[in-house]
């Protein structure tokens, strides 16, 4: 086993990997940018190496800096987390060339799955069904226009090198095509350094269901069941569950077999996820993409299968066999995760950076919070706005929802806007409770809610709570008034100008 491992990431996922290192008695090494000098992941590591300035291109995305940091600290392996360089084959290669172990698949498998066009080709060859669309990247706008007409609107524009919803646009009609094409191109160039796009037919009311796969270097490839990730905003997941509310063992078996077949076809090793779109009505599934890394939503699989995926990743990378066989994997109960983003859900999910001025993290039976922040942490504008992941487990989906509701109500983060309030409403939504999910869930949820709030009169309890909120604001206002007047009274005749003069004198003396 490794003695020292460098985590080429930040925030909650760096913290998650540090925990797995501790379990395995491996010494964790953090890397950080200037903005993260006092971040939580740095404080939990044994050693920390400064990469450079805050922009990720000069820190967390710099391959030479990260490899140099690993060599300097004497790390034997690098865990990339997710995002940043996690799916960059050049990085995996550079790590291996430096004589270190990359915790992830071989660069060749990453390359095939990293481009959506080659990934679709691999899926077709392995006999896994795909969504109708282009196999080659789009060359020109006029070609895009022709193809869109051929497939019929709505269509989806996607970055060939993409993931995480970046460089991705749903286009309803020709009017929107040019602006979407240009924005997707420039977003793809900014996020992945590659502006090529491809085009796909959009499927009606699709569910987004993915299969977790795992493979060792001895030829064992297994699947750990599905995760339903249909609740998305800007094509990025916000709530995930395991198993899917469909909970169809036969479908799980078929999708699992398809995912394993694809993983085998590219000689996959380590943890990976094969994403599918499942047509709501027919339950036909189509290959979407394969993520050649750990997923953000891995905790729900961990809670239901009891397997520590990060620990298993490190074990497999160190040359061990998978610690479980396919027939040993069981799915017990139900888990749901909410991604807590520093975003204003009521204002189009606009990022909300700032300092966390109050934090109360929920706990209790079946509650897990994977967080990268603490009281006083600055959520900077430089990185992804996800600050933590709240996951709960219950014996059934209903019981898991009960625990999630309680945990969300207990969770409090002040100083920045977060998606917590939005989740509190979703867990009370009848369609969510019934498990009627598809990727258009959020927009329909908002319509339902607007209709409901317009038609429901305020209850006595709501009026009382509102009155108490007004009273609290008034108490605080009067208290601030009192403090200001006391301050003025305590320092008669002192102006700001005089104060700054005195400070200048004091500074002069100090020298």
């Amino acid at each position: 086993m490794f003695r020292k491992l460098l985590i080429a990431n930040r925030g909650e996922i760096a913290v998650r990997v540090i925990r797995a290192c501790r379990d395995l008695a491996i010494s964790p090494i953090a890397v950080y940018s200037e903005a993260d000098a006092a971040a939580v992941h740095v404080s939990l590591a044994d050693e920390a190496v400064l990469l450079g300035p805050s922009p990720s291109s000069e820190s967390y995305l710099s391959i030479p800096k990260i490899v140099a940091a690993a060599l300097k600290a004497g790390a034997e392996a690098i865990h990339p987390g997710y995002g940043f360089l996690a799916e960059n084959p050049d990085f995996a290669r550079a790590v291996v060339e430096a004589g270190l172990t990359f915790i992830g698949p071989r660069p060749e498998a990453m390359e095939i799955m990293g481009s959506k066009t080659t990934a679709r080709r691999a899926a077709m060859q392995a006999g896994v069904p795909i969504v109708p669309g282009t196999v080659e990247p789009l060359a020109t706008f006029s070609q895009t226009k022709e193809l869109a007409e051929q497939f019929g609107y709505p269509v989806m524009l996607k970055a060939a090198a993409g993931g995480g919803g970046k460089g991705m646009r749903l286009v309803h009609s020709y009017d929107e095509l040019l602006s979407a094409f240009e924005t997707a191109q420039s977003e793809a160039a900014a996020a992945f350094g590659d502006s090529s796009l491809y085009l796909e037919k959009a499927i009606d009311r699709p569910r987004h269901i993915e299969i977790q796969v795992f493979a060792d270097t001895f030829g064992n490839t297994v699947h750990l069941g599905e995760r339903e990730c249909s609740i998305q905003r800007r094509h990025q997941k916000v709530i995930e569950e395991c198993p899917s509310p469909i909970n169809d063992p036969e479908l799980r078996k078929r999708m699992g077999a398809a995912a394993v077949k694809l993983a085998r076809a590219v000689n996959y090793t380590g943890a990976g996820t094969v994403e599918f779109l499942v047509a709501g009505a027919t339950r036909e599934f189509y290959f979407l993409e394969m993520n050649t890394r750990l997923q953000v939503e891995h905790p729900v699989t961990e809670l239901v299968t009891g397997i520590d995926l990060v620990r298993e990743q490190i074990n497999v990378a160190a040359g061990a066999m998978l610690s479980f066989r396919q027939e040993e994997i069981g799915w017990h109960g139900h888990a749901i995760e909410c991604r807590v983003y520093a975003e204003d859900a009521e204002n189009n999910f606009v990022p909300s950076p700032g300092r966390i001025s109050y934090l109360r993290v929920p706990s209790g039976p079946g509650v897990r919070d994977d967080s990268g922040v603490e009281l006083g942490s600055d959520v900077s504008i430089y990185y992804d706005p996800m600050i933590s992941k709240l996951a709960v487990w219950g014996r059934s989906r209903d019981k898991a929802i009960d625990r999630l509701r309680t945990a969300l109500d207990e969770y409090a983060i002040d100083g920045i806007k977060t998606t917590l309030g939005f989740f509190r409403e979703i867990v009370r939504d009848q369609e969510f409770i019934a498990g009627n999910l598809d990727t258009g869930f959020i927009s329909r949820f908002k319509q339902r809610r607007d209709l409901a709030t317009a038609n429901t009169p305020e209850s006595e309890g709501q009026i009382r709570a509102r009155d108490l909120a007004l009273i609290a604001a008034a108490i605080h206002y009067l208290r601030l008034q009192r403090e200001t007047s006391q301050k003025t009274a305590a320092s008669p005749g002192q102006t700001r100008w005089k104060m700054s003069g005195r400070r200048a004198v004091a500074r002069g003396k100090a020298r």
Partner: protein
Amino acid sequence: MKLIAELAGTEHGLIIKIEQQKVFAEIHGRNYEVEIRERNENHYLLLEGTRVFDCRVEQTREKFTVHLDRNEYSIRIIDPKRLSSAQSGSRHDHGAVEIIAPMPGKVVRVLVEAGAAVKAGSSILVVEAMKMQNELKTPKTGTVVSVNAEPGATVNAGDVLAVIE
């Protein structure tokens, strides 16, 4: 003490008296007697009889955000005694719309020039923050009066990036 508290566009008259740890308040004829326990400088436990209200008050510009139970209230306190000219000059627009940066970030593209005619819903510029590009659109059809940002410029939340009339 009489105050006006504005919440979601509605003004509520508030009569309030604080005597040490006790608060007496009246809102729309409803009377409250509340005991205050301070947890820290902006965190109060309010007890009305046996009912517990855990409140945190954040000050954001001219408003207070009150977190109470699982809800959030954005409240503006108007003090009739201290009503200053700054508050009385209501900023009713003259049909002009400001395109405002909703968050700090970087301008990546400017899609219109001053003098251009724009339709409601069309994109004016693109701002990137936290790796996401956000198209800022005009809510009204009209003419671009001014564009105050260039590609590459760093902007703060609240900056007026363009004006449409």
